[in-house]
Structures are given as structure tokens and as C-alpha cells.
């Protein structure tokens, strides 16, 4: 029987998928000089279209319901995450555009894969059963494996791609095995059906189900780069092309956490006494590992990678809270976090292009004075990561702590506070390098393969525009918090807390 298909609900996915197709066609149909511009434009239009479509679906969906024979779900929770993914993709295209000198190969494929990854992510956050979940997960993961290795002439990039492929596949395999165990125990694939089966058949203590649940949490932990499943993160983030890292850090984390919250709350609501503790422990581990490891990093991308591990910890506090406030907190947190993460990696990318080598924290010296727009933006992003007011990072932490309070877990708040204090030195070390030291302290001559000959820094209009947009989101989400919270609340209402 052919199920009726709600094309409108699928439109964000289709927009990005269509963009991927167009971008791929430009690789063969458009002459070399125009190829990059056309492919990037196609991807940008796809992401912008997906953003609009997701906003429309959000607006026209009052009550969540299953579509396409219940394989997927159309609700505000999913579309909210789709908007974040599409917005991140749009910024990622702008950051990528000046990534390499004109006329390089694989430019069209690059944008095609970026749009395809976005489509897979949008598919994943609206997944409603274990099958579509795995499909979406692999869809975007495979796109990202290739994107990480796209700079084939850079050794680090190949290594990153391979590492991501192997460890990511391992994570996917664990998730798949867990799904199989859950299916074997309950005989159901749909999230809601699993919950019904657990309560109807009294499976709460079924070892098969519990093992499956643990393996699903593990698999999603790999994708969210939560400790102790984070070991691929620093290497992959360091080796991958920086715009890809920026996109991964924002969008992959978004979808992994949003999906984790969806499946845990919808399918395993009956087991919440177990998984909330497990997620809280993972959150604490991520906060500890991420922040402590970041303290000793010298490479800027590795530092930001560990920082993203610690932020996964913060957002997992919201997941562990398992309440309405937690849903709001997670969705809110993801907006400034994605903007700050994309923006911070973009600034690092700008410095890397300027220097022609991977940037260490010391390499950022004096950048705040040389390129004040990027400098002020990076300063804001770092303050936002710490949770300073005047950035959305403040409300993110505030709401996460509120969720923990509503749950009655003040100890988890205190863990978060200690983690924030530990994180201060390394975030401020970046600000210190950019503003408190001068460029004269840079020692380029010995280390850089292509020493910079001086002169004004390159003008990357699109990258600067993306950074300014990320800065705008970061700051605006502090001042106009009410509309975002209203949206996040409506979205979180879609889940059966």
C-alpha cells in the first residue's frame, strides 16, 4: 500500500536535497570559472529555502502528527531544529566560499555534499521510528565523512576523514545494534509504539530493552561528541577543512541532541529513572573532559573541539532534566551555540587562510587589532561560550540551570558552574591572544611554510558577513529572548514530557 505523503512536511529536506542535486550537476554542466559561484549559490538557495520552508511548516503545525505512514513526524520540535540546521548551513556556505584559491577541483561536489548533509540532518530530526532514524543518521554521516576528507592533498584532512569514518561507523553500528535489541524486545519500530509496548507488555526491566537503550544512548553520544564517546572529535575537527568543522560543530550537535531528547522522551519515557541518570553522568563526564582537556590545547581548532565537547555536556543537562524547561533550554541553547561555534571557527578559518597554516592560539596574536570586526566577534563568541551576559550564551546557561533546578538537581547546576570556572582560562586565552598581545609577538618566519609578506589582510566579504551574522544572532538572542523562548516552548510542547 502506498502511504500518503505530506510533501509540505518534507519540503525542508527536499529543498536541501534539490540544492545538492543542482550543485552536483554544475560540476559537469557549468564551465570551470563559474562552477564554484553557481554551486555555492545553489547550496545557499537550498539552505535559505529550507529555512523558509521549515519556518512555514513550524507556523502551520499546531499539533504534531506522524506523516508518511508514521515513519516521520511533523511537529514544531523537529522543524525548530531544522531551522537551526538550515541557518547553520547557510552560514557554512558563506564561510566556505573563499576557502581555497579559485579554480580548484571538487568545488561543486563540496557544496553538493554540504547541502546533502543538511538534508540528512533535517530528515533525522523528523524521524519517528528506528528505521528512519538510522537512515537519516547514515545519510548525513556519509556526506560528512567525505567532506572531512575533501582536501585530499592535505594529509590531516584524509586522516580526519578516515578517523571519522571508522569511529563514526562504529558509533552507527552500536546504535543499529541497540535499535535491533529494542525492536527484538518490543516488536515495534515507531517511537510512540515502543513506549506503548513497554507499558502494555510490562517490559520496564527487560534486559534486552535496557541493553538496547544503553546502546542507543551510546550511539547518539558518539554523534553529539559527548564524553566518553568524544575521542574522535579533536582529531576530526582539527583535520577537517575549517568550514566543514564549523558546520559539523553546529549542525551535527544540534541534530544529535535534539534526536536524543526526542527518542528518550517519546520512546523511553517509562525508563526515565534510568536514562536521566545515565545522561546526567555523561553530561558531567563531558563537562569534565572537555574543559580540562581544552585547558592544555594550543591549536585553536582542537581547543574549540574540546569546548564543543563541554557544551555537549551543558546541553545534555537539559536532556537529563527530562522536563518542559529542559526542552526549552535545549532548543534555546542550540541557537546561540550554533551561531557562536560557526562564527568562532570562521574566525579561525580566516586566520588560517591569512597565514597559510593551521592556527595555534598564539597565531591569533594581535588579530583583534588587525581585523577589528573579526576580533570583536571572536571576543563576543568566547564570552558567549563562557556564558557572559550580553550574549545568548548567558540565557543558554541560565535556562539549562533552570531545567536542572526544576528537576531538583542543584548538584548538576553546581557541576555546571565549576565547569564554567574551569573553562574561563582557555576561552580568555583566545581573547588574550587577540587583544592583549601584539602581532609583533607572532613568530611566523620559523613556522609558516608560506610566510606572509605583509600588507593588509585578505578581504573575505562573505566570511565577514557570516561572522557578523553569527555575532548578530549571538547578541540579539540575549536581548530578544522572549520570542525565541515562546518558539522553543511551543516546540518543546510537541514532546510528551
Amino acid at each position: 500500500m502506498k502511504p500518503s505523503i505530506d510533501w509540505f512536511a518534507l519540503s525542508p529536506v527536499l529543498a536541501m536535497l534539490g540544492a545538492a542535486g543542482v550543485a552536483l550537476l554544475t560540476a559537469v554542466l557549468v564551465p570551470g570559472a563559474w562552477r564554484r559561484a553557481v554551486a555555492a549559490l545553489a547550496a545557499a538557495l537550498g539552505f535559505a529555502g529550507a529555512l523558509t520552508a521549515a519556518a512555514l511548516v513550524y507556523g502551520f503545525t499546531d499539533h504534531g502528527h506522524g506523516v508518511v505512514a508514521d515513519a516521520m513526524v511533523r511537529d514544531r520540535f523537529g522543524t525548530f531544529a531544522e531551522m537551526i540546521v538550515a541557518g547553520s548551513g547557510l552560514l557554512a556556505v558563506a564561510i566556505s566560499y573563499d576557502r581555497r584559491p579559485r579554480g580548484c577541483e571538487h568545488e561543486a561536489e563540496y557544496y553538493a555534499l554540504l547541502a546533502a548533509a543538511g538534508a540528512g540532518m533535517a530528515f533525522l530530526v523528523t524521524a519517528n521510528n528506528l528505521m528512519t532514524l538510522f537512515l537519516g543518521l547514515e545519510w548525513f554521516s556519509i556526506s560528512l565523512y567525505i567532506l572531512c576528507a575533501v582536501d585530499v592533498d592535505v594529509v590531516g584532512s584524509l586522516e580526519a576523514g578516515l578517523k571519522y569514518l571508522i569511529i563514526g561507523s562504529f558509533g552507527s553500528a552500536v546504535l543499529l545494534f541497540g535499535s535491533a535489541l529494542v525492536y527484538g524486545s518490543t516488536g515495534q519500530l515507531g517511537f510512540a509504539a515502543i513506549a506503548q509496548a513497554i507499558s502494555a507488555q510490562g517490559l520496564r526491566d527487560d534486559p534486552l530493552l535496557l541493553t538496547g537503550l544503553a546502546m542507543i544512548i551510546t550511539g547518539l553520544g558518539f554523534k553529539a561528541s559527548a564524553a566518553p564517546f568524544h575521542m574522535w572529535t579533536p582529531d576530526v575537527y582539527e583535520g577537517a577543512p575549517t568550514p566543514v568543522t564549523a558546520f559539523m560543530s553546529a549542525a551535527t550537535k544540534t541534530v544529535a541532541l535534539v534526536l536524543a531528547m526526542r527518542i528518550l522522551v517519546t520512546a523511553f519515557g517509562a525508563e526515565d529513572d534510568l536514562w536521566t541518570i545515565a545522561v546526567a553522568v555523561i553530561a558531567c563526564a563531558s563537562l569534565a573532559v572537555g574543559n580540562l582537556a581544552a585547558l592544555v590545547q594550543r591549536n585553536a581548532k582542537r581547543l574549540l573541539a574540546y569546548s564543543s565537547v563541554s557544551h555537549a555536556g551543558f546541553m545534555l543537562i537539559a536532556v537529563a532534566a527530562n522536563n518542559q524547561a529542559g526542552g526549552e533550554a535545549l532548543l534555546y541553547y542550540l541557537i546561540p551555540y550554533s551561531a557562536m561555534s560557526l562564527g568562532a571557527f570562521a574566525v579561525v578559518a580566516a586566520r588560517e587562510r591569512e597565514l597559510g597554516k593551521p592556527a595555534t592560539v598564539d597565531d591569533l596574536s594581535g588579530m583583534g587589532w588587525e581585523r577589528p570586526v573579526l576580533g570583536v566577534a571572536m571576543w563576543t563568541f568566547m564570552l558567549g561560550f563562557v556564558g557572559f551576559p550580553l550574549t545568548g550564551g548567558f540565557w543558554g546557561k541560565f535556562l539549562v540551570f533552570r531545567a536542572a533546578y526544576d528537576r531538583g538537581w542543584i548538584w548538576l547546576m553546581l557541576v555546571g558552574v565549576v565547569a564554567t570556572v574551569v573553562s574561563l582560562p582557555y576561552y580568555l586565552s583566545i581573547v588574550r591572544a587577540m587583544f592583549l598581545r601584539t602581532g609583533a609577538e607572532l613568530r611566523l618566519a620559523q613556522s609558516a611554510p608560506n610566510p606572509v609578506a605583509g600588507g593588509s589582510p585578505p578581504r573575505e566579504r562573505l566570511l565577514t558577513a557570516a561572522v557578523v551574522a553569527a555575532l548578530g544572532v549571538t547578541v540579539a538572542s540575549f536581548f530578544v529572548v522572549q520570542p525565541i523562548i515562546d518558539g522553543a516552548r511551543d516546540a518543546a510542547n510537541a514532546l510528551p514530557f
Partner: protein
Amino acid sequence: MNGWLTTILILLPMAGALVVWTAPLSRHRAGSFALLVALAEVGVWINALVRFDFGQDGIQFEQRTSWLGDLNISYHVGLYGFSLWLVGLTVVVMAATIGYGFWVGRDRARAYFGLMLLLTGAVVAVFSSQDLVLFYAAFEAMMIPLYVLVGAWGGAGRLRATVKFVIYTMAGSLLMLVSVIVFGLSQGTFDLVDTGASGSSWIFLGFVAAFVVKAPLFPFHGWLPDAYREASPEVSAVLSGVVSKAAVYGFLRVAIAKFPGPAHDFKVPILVLASIGLVYGSLLAFRAPDFRGVIAYSSLAQMGLITLGLFSFNDAGLDGAVLQSVTHGLVSATLFLLAGAVERRTSTGELALLGGMARGRPALATLLMATGIVALAVPGSAAFAGEFLILAGVFRQGWAWAVVGAVAIVLAAMYVLRVISATLHERPGSAVTDAALDLRPAELAILVPLVACLLALSVWPAAVSERSFPRNRAAALGAPVGWTVYPLRPATFPRDLELKAK
């Protein structure tokens, strides 16, 4: 209409900061513009002072807009008597320091003046916020410009100093964040006027953690000597004169007003820390080898004294604490600017290398003497009135506290006279040459108004001490009916003891 006054006081410098950052101004124009904005800010404050009704209980110039309605968080600002004086201190000191920065010709002028203006707005926001989240946001927002101001324009050891400074203060204020969240959520609102009192010691201690670091109180002052020595003189002036008073506001508006029970329970430990800080800071100030070290440690001592006044929980102590905050703010700002002037002329602040600067430099000598005499609390000075009120207040908590306070005042005389004689008198130091000029007219234009404010306060200290709180102090702090923070105040507290400098 009047509600906008507070908002203007907050937003005017912030808007000025945005203009300085975005408009392509030359160094000279950026400085002039920033100074203009700072003076306009003083004008707005004078307007507020004229319109302020000191006879009225409760909050004035109030403005309230919902920010996050779900949690009853709002942009809620307004001024009490004591907030008005603290804001006044801020705008005057900020105008003077911006003027000083302009005169000295700080490099990277647009960034510098923008940050100074942003700092002005943030500090005014702290002193006028009536919502806990807004208070926390403004409290933290002060750190953003300060971090770069200390770190980018400071001396050789600035990097270490800033790291210490930020980690100390952030550790304190993140504990406050937990307290803000727990307190606000348990009360159902974050509004300082609407919330009632709480009896939770843990929440109280979270707030206190932030304030004792910010003030700082012994033993949380590890960041102080480094930051005050390594920052540029005008930034040190702001740090010790203005920013430390955020802790006074926090104690007054949050810790004491909202936690009457815990404030009483923890009264003795806090008074002990304040007393230790008072004596220890004074002794260190007496031993400090450099001009700025003396002022830095004397700030530690003075903040201890102010805390003694705050935690005496009676009219005299609270009045004295506010008066002393304003006086100390002006004194330490003036002294830091004078220290900067001396350092510019001699390239050192080492007291051993200074001396004999009074000869041929009458303006410098007069201003330093005048400020120093106020600082050592000569009878008749504003600082004397403040210290007397504080001692009279804390005397009601036990005579021993007053004895400690009185001893420290003697020590204050010792360190102030030491710095005056080491700089101005004795033989000309090896770093003092004839090329070291007297204060220039521009410096006089900056310093004379500050000293004039101090002299005016000395003539009429009751302007602040009698106008900080209306008669009903409990109502002034927005506390609920039946509030018993000051049970130790006898109904017949002798009015003449309160020394209104009559």
C-alpha cells in the same frame, strides 16, 4: 517621563560607545566625543538629582519592561537615595578618568574610549537595576570592558594580573548566578521589589561570594594588588573607586535586604573578615613600597570599614557606609590619578625613589595634601563623618568592632602621611628631576573638580548620609511588612550620636 531618566543614564554612554567604535573618528575626536558624552552623563545625573524627591519613600525614576515574561524577568530600573549617590560617584569619576585618558593620549583611542563608555553604562546599570537577572547581567557586563582595559593598556605584568582578576571575580559571580536562579525560581519572580525575604543560608552565601570578591574582603583580595598596580592609573581609579562599590550595592540591595535571617546568622564571620581586612590592609598599605600599592591596600582596608558599617544593621552604620563609599570612591580615584601624574613625571612609583616633589610644584602638593587629609579622616572631613557614623553604628553590635575600626583609623593616618611625606617632602628622590613639571592646567581641570566634590562633601556630609535612605529604611529596600533587619536599633537611639555634622 521621569522613568526614562534612569534608562538614559544607562543607555547614553552605551550609545556613545557604539558611536566611538563605528564612526571613523581620529584619536583626538574620539577622545573629545567620549569626554563630551561623559560630561553629558554628569549633566543628566544632576538633572536626576534636582528632580529626586528625598522625602519620598521607595523607588523613583522607575521603569519596567518585560524581558522574559515566563520567569517574571524584566528590565526594571530605578533609583533609591543611595543608588543615586553611587550613580553620581560613577558618572563623576568616569568623566574624570575619561578626561585623564584623553589627556594622556591613550593609543588605540577608539577602542579605549568605547570601552570606558561601555563600562560607565554597565556600572550605572548595576547601581540602578531592580531585577536580579538584570543586576547579574550588569555585574558581569562590567567585567567585559575591564578585562581588556586592564589587559591591553596595563603595565608589564598585565597579563598575569588580568587572568587573576577575571578568575577570582568570575568564580564569585558564577556562584551568585546559582543563587540568582535558585532564589528567583523559588520566589516565582526575579524582581527585587516584588520578591520577599528568604531564609536560605546557601543562597545568601552564593551572593556573598560574589560581593566579597568584588569588594574585595580579606582573604579574597588576591587579585587586588596586581590589578591595581598593573592597570593604567585611570583604570585603577575606576576599579577601586567605582567598581568595588558594586559590592556595596549588592550587599545593601540583595544580601541584607533579601536575606535578613542569614545576614544576621553570618554577621560575626563577615564582621571578622572585614575587621581583619581593615587592619591587615592598613598595615600592608603602611609597608607597601610604591604609591599605588599604598592606595591599593588602603582600598582593601576601606572596603572592610564600609562592610563593618553595612553589617551593623542600624541607621548610623548604613548611612555611614553609603557616605564612606562615595567619599572613598572620590578619594581613591583622585589618589590614583595623582599617582599616575607622579609616575608620568618620574617613570616610577617607588616611594624610595621619590621625594621632595612639593618644592616648586605647589599645585601637585596642594591637591595631594588636600586629598590625603580627607583620606586620613581628619575631623571635619567627609571621611571622618563617614567613619564616625560607621563606628557609631558598629558599636551597637559590640564595642570590640568599634575598637578595631578606631585602631585602623590611626593606621590610616600613618600610611597616608607616609605616602605624602615620601612623595612631597624629604630630599628630592633620585627619580625626581627638575624636568618633572607641576600639574598642567589640563590635569588641574580633571583633578580640581574631584577634590572640590570631596571638600563639598566635607562641608555637608549630611547631603549623602541623611539622603541615602528615607526614614523607613526597611520600606526603602522594598522589604515586606514585618521585616526585622534592624531589631538591634533601640527606639531611643540618640540622634546626637549620629553626628550629622551639625
